[in-house]
C-alpha cells in the first residue's frame, strides 16, 4: 500500500523533474548557437593540487577568467604521471570546451619514453606555450662535488656510485639526469648511474638533501629556496642566460648547446582538430593574459620565465623537444615497454 503510494509520488516527482529539465535545457540550447564560448570552459590539470602544474594553471586562470566571457572550471584529474587526465582530454569533444594544461612530462617525456602510453603526442592541438622553466642540476651543499667535472669524474671513476632522484618514471627529472650525463661524456648513463624514483618533486629534492641521492636535475623553481638557503649547491643551468639566484655556469658557458632543449614548459592544449576560431580566440586570450602584471609577478616570483609562443611555434617547439627526447631514449634503451 505504502509502496504503491510511494511509487505514484515518485512518478510524479520524476515527471516534475523532467519538465523542469526540459525547460532549462531549452533555455540553454537557445543560447548555444552563439559564438565560442557560450558555456563554461573546463581546463583539466593532469597533476595534483599544489604541484607546479597546478599552481601554474590556476595562476593563469585568474587573468584568463577576466578575459573569457564564460567561467573557467579548472579541474584536477590526477594519476599515472599525468596520463589519466591527458587521456580524458583526448577523449573529449574537440569543440574547445575541454582544454588542458599540457606539461613537459605529460606531452614530451612520457610519449617519448613509454611504449604503452594510452595516448600519442599527435592527438593534441596546442594553442600556446606560456611558460618556460629552466632546468638546474644541484648536489647537497655538504657534498665534495663542486662542479660538473667533479660529478662526471666521480661517475667515470666508479660506475654505480652516483645516484640521482626523480619524481617518477617518465618525468622530466628522469630524462634530465640521463641527458645531462650523456652530454658530459658518460657513455651509458642508464648503466653507470642509479636512478631513484620518488613520489613527487618535493620528495625528489628532499632525497638529495638527506643524502639518499647524489644529485638532481629539475626545474630551477623547485630548487630555488634550497639554493637560497644554501642547502643545495647548483652545478649548472641548462639555459643560455644565467638564472637569477643560481650561482652556476650555464650550458652555453660549459659548451653544451644541446642542453638548451632540456627545459620545462607549460602550455594549453586541446583534443586534435580544434576549430580555427577556438585557436584564434585562445591566441588572443593568452597574449593578453601573460601581459597581466599580477600574473607576471606571481610566476616570476616562483622562478619561471614567461614566454608566449603562438599555436604554430608551440607545435614546432614541442615536436622538436619530443624528437630530441625520443632519440635519446632510443640511444640509451630507456624505453618502458611493459
Amino acid at each position, binding site marked *: 500500500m*505504502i*509502496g504503491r*503510494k*510511494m*511509487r505514484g*509520488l*515518485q512518478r510524479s*516527482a*520524476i515527471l*516534475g*523533474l523532467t519538465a523542469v*529539465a*526540459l525547460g*532549462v*535545457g531549452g533555455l*540553454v540550447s537557445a543560447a548555444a548557437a552563439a559564438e565560442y564560448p557560450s*558555456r*563554461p570552459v*573546463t581546463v583539466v590539470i593532469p597533476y595534483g593540487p599544489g604541484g607546479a602544474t597546478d599552481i601554474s594553471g590556476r595562476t593563469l586562470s585568474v587573468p584568463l577568467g577576466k578575459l573569457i566571457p564564460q567561467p573557467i*572550471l*579548472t*579541474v584536477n584529474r590526477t594519476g599515472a604521471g599525468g596520463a589519466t587526465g591527458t587521456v580524458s582530454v583526448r577523449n573529449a569533444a574537440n569543440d574547445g570546451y575541454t582544454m588542458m594544461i599540457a606539461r613537459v612530462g605529460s606531452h614530451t617525456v612520457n610519449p617519448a619514453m613509454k611504449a604503452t602510453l594510452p595516448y600519442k603526442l599527435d592527438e593534441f592541438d596546442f594553442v600556446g606555450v606560456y611558460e618556460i622553466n629552466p632546468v638546474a642540476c644541484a648536489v647537497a651543499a655538504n657534498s665534495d662535488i663542486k662542479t660538473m667535472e667533479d660529478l662526471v669524474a666521480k661517475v667515470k671513476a666508479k660506475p654505480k656510485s652516483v645516484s640521482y632522484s626523480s619524481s617518477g618514471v617518465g618525468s622530466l627529472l628522469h630524462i634530465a639526469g640521463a641527458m645531462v650525463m650523456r652530454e658530459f661524456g658518460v657513455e651509458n648513463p642508464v648503466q653507470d648511474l642509479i636512478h631513484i624514483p620518488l613520489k613527487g618533486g618535493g620528495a625528489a629534492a628532499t632525497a638529495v638533501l638527506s643524502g639518499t641521492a647524489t644529485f638532481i636535475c629539475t626545474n630551477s623553481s623547485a630548487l630555488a629556496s634550497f639554493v637560497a638557503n644554501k642547502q643545495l649547491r647548483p652545478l649548472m643551468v641548462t639555459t643560455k642566460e644565467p638564472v637569477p639566484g643560481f650561482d652556476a655556469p650555464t650550458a652555453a658557458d660549459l659548451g653544451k648547446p644541446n642542453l638548451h632543449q632540456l627545459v620545462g614548459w607549460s602550455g594549453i592544449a586541446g583534443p586534435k582538430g580544434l576549430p580555427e576560431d577556438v585557436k584564434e580566440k585562445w591566441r588572443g586570450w593568452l597574449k593578453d593574459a601573460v601581459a597581466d602584471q599580477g600574473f607576471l609577478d606571481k610566476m616570476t616570483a616562483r622562478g619561471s620565465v614567461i614566454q608566449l609562443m603562438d599555436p604554430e611555434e608551440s607545435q614546432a617547439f614541442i615536436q622538436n623537444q619530443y624528437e630530441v627526447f625520443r632519440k635519446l631514449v632510443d640511444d640509451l634503451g630507456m624505453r*618502458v*615497454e*611493459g
Partner: protein
Amino acid sequence: MNLMNKDIWLGIGAIAFGVFLLVFAIPSFVSSPSNVPALVLAPTFWPTIVAYIIVVLGAALVISRMSGLTNESSGETANVPETREEQLYGLGRLLAMAVLMVGLVIATPIVGMVLATAIAFAFFAAIVVTPRPLTSIVVAIVLPLALYAFFSHVAGVSVPQGRFLTLP
C-alpha cells in the same frame, strides 16, 4: 550456515584466489622488464609475496577452524532478518541496489549527475519502502541541487551536466 563453516569456505576461497594470482594473474597482468638487475627489484616481486601470504593465511584459517583450535569468532555484525521470507526479500533489495548503482553510473554522463542522483534517491526510497515518502521526495529534489550548487560554484568541480539539462 554457521560462521564456523563459512570461515572454512572463506579459507578455501582465499587459497584458490592466491593460487589464481600466482599461476595466472601475476604472470599475465604484471609486466616486468627483462633487464631487472635483482630479483627483489622486479615489479612482480611484491605481488608474488602477497599472493603467497594469501595462500598461507587461507590455509591457516581452514586448519584453525577445522581443528577447533580457536574460538568461533563472534557472529555477523550485520543485523539478520529473522524469517526466511524476510531474508529473501532482503536479497531482492540488495539485487535492486546493485541495479541502482549500475544505473546511476550509466545514467550520470547521459542525464547529468543531478538528475541521476535525484532519481537514484527516489528509487532507493522505493526499494526500502520508506515510511516517509513525502520527505523523501522533497530531499530527493533539494539535496542533489544543493550539492550541485556547492560543488560546482564553491568548490569549482565540473559536475557532469548531461546531454539534456545544463544547470547554471
